[in-house]
């Protein structure tokens, strides 16, 4: 009576593929060879996309970029578990998840190039969400909608270890629980939130236990183990589709910089980085696939070549799109129907741009872009640049292929 235990909870950790690439059959999800190869291809594609995107930023061709290098298993494994008729609600480091969901590379690059064209919504993926953790509530809303309609479908959202400190993430898990939302909350614990290490975000032993506060299930998985992640995500989605939201903590590592403006050497050790390199998700999966005979040197070379060809096309496409940006379009999507004062502002804008063209030497493209070029474009400052000055300096010198291995 007087002092008694009234509730008990625990957090489980799952791993299917260990660091040497050995599979624990009991934890392995069912995956055929084709899917195994596709998982592998997606992880490789993601890594190369990130590397190329960083290089583009270094050359001044695009803006701040947040690479997910090291997190490919966490993203590809979980996004792969989602059905086409289900929703993916990413944060800002989810290139791999987007690619898994079929988004073309040039769209990701457009976003990095500062173009809304890269944030258009297609195929049930919401656009990148910059305010940390805020998107978890959208996923709760989507999952609630699926519950209201009684759909056999779910929503999966991503956020980081840092994001778990935000009230939004807690609120999202809590309301999802109450509303039986079909939502899976996938926390990629990559150990760092910019310079703040995981243990300074929360006193909690695990992040998965954040689920306890919401009364929903929480589980930890080796986030560098694509098969473990896939299995856990499948189970979580299955539960969510029945109105039982789940939080998944994928233990992984941000191998590279926070963004292209960041220099991790200021706040973490090479030793730590080395430890995690050894647990690289792609290397591990590769070992397993080769061991299984699903992959060999020829196949790997073929995949690599296909990826390079694809990226080369996509980067061209991104560059072409960038040349077609019409600044005046910023007025066109504020409301479904543009109100009078805004129409007037658009007209003023166009008139002034015209006037500008008259006084400044116009380029072939005309308008703003013309002027910028005419004015002799200085290399733009990038955001959070100060912290990344050193990195930038290196970056400016590096060429397309050299950058991206280590931030």
């Amino acid at each position, binding site marked *: 009576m007087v002092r008694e235990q009234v509730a008990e909870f625990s957090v489980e950790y799952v791993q299917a593929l260990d660091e040497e690439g050995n599979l624990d059959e009991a934890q392995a999800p069912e995956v055929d060879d084709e899917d195994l190869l596709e998982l592998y291809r997606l992880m490789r594609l993601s890594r190369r996309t990130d590397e190329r995107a960083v290089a583009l930023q270094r050359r001044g061709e695009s803006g701040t970029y947040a690479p997910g290098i090291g997190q490919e298993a966490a993203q590809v494994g979980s996004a792969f578990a989602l059905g086409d008729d289900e*929703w993916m*609600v990413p944060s800002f480091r989810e290139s791999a998840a987007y690619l898994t969901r079929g988004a073309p590379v040039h769209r990701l690059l457009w976003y990095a190039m500062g173009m*809304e*064209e890269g*944030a*258009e*919504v*297609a195929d049930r993926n*919401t*656009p990148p*969400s*910059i*305010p940390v953790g*805020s998107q*978890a*509530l*959208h*996923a*709760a*809303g*989507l*999952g*609630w*909608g*699926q519950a*209201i*309609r009684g759909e056999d479908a779910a*929503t999966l959202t991503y956020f980081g270890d840092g994001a778990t400190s935000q*009230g*939004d993430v807690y*609120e*999202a898990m*809590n*309301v999802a629980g*109450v*509303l039986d939302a079909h939502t899976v909350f996938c926390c990629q614990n990559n150990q760092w939130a910019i310079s703040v290490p995981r243990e300074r975000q929360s006193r909690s032993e695990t992040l998965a236990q954040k689920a306890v506060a919401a009364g929903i299930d929480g589980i930890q998985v080796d986030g560098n183990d694509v098969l473990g992640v896939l299995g856990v995500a499948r189970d979580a989605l299955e539960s969510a589709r029945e109105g039982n939201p789940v939080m998944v903590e994928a233990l992984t590592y941000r191998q590279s910089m926070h963004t292209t403006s960041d220099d991790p050497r200021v706040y973490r050790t090479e030793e730590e980085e080395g430890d995690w390199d050894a647990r690289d998700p792609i290397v591990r999966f590769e070992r397993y696939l080769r061991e299984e005979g699903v992959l060999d040197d020829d196949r790997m070379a073929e995949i690599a070549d296909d990826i390079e060809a694809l990226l080369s096309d996509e980067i061209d496409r991104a560059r072409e799109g960038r040349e077609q940006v019409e600044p005046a*379009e*910023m007025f*066109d*999507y*504020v*409301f*479904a129907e543009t*109100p*009078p*004062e*805004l129409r007037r502002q658009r007209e003023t804008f166009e008139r002034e741009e015209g006037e500008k063209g008259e006084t400044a030497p116009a380029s072939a493209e005309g308008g703003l872009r013309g002027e910028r070029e005419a004015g002799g474009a200085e290399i733009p400052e990038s955001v959070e640049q100060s912290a990344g000055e050193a990195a930038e300096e290196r970056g400016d010198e590096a060429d397309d292929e050299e950058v991206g291995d280590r931030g």
Partner: protein
Amino acid sequence: MANQIRLVEAVRQALDEEMARDESVVVYGEDVGVNGGVFRATQDLIEEYPEQVYDTPLAEAAILGLGVGLSAAGFRPVPEIQFASFAYQGFHQLVQHASRMRSRTRGTLGVPMTVRTPYGGGIRALELHSESYEAGFAHVPGLKTVVPANPADAKGLLTAAIRDPDPVMFLEPTSRYRASRESVPEGEHVVPLGEAEVVREGEEVTVVAWGAMVAEALDAVESGDADAEVIDLRTVSPMDSEAILDSVRKTGRCVVVHEAPRTGGLAAEIVARINDDALYYLEAPVERVTGYDVPFPLFAREEAYRPDADRIRRGIERALSA
């Protein structure tokens, strides 16, 4: 056909009819279900529309953020924020997401959410239950802000807001909820957003007001000597500048009234629009009759804070005597 009903009942009627018309309309928030809302704006709706009315946990960021997700899922969310001052708890969801979504996705994802919330002073409410932050909302691109002043408009504007493809802050003046019974059309009644209404014609001075201040302005005019034109702005953003400018071009004088603090209030924006397009018609400075630049006081000092017919009358007199 028309009914004599109060503003809060008109709100309820609009919700009722819109939920009947479109099952993607979902009403939710704190105490809006079983309790029928703390002002009874949603009374009994949960019984009529059990799949469309929901009580939620006590979390405004969640309430607004859910609306963004529901929108993506194809719903028309009509959340209630129990009092306007608590919208701040979810202000980031409004500014960073709801209002920007269409723009940032180039029209591929809209947020047809209508955020209903009681607002303004005059009912001796608890602390932080009486603020007016419409200027702060109006300064957020992509968000519409609407304030009905009477029962018929409450129904018509709310209907329009719910049907609008973009996010709308729908601010319901608490002091008008039960102030009077007025004629409200039965059945479909839509008052388009973005159109002000001349509620009294006059030649000597233009008085612009919205929400609870419209009644005060009319009182002031009735009890004064000036032949004033009174404009109910109704939608404060996007603003119907033409209605104001037309009137000011005619009268040459203008008084703008709001409960919100003076500095940075929407009266300033109206003055600026008159400056832009009708300066040369002005025969006197535009008068601003507003709340003071002080936090809305607890209710013992509330009457001293809020503009009333008296203060408006003095404003009109100043505009006429300058």
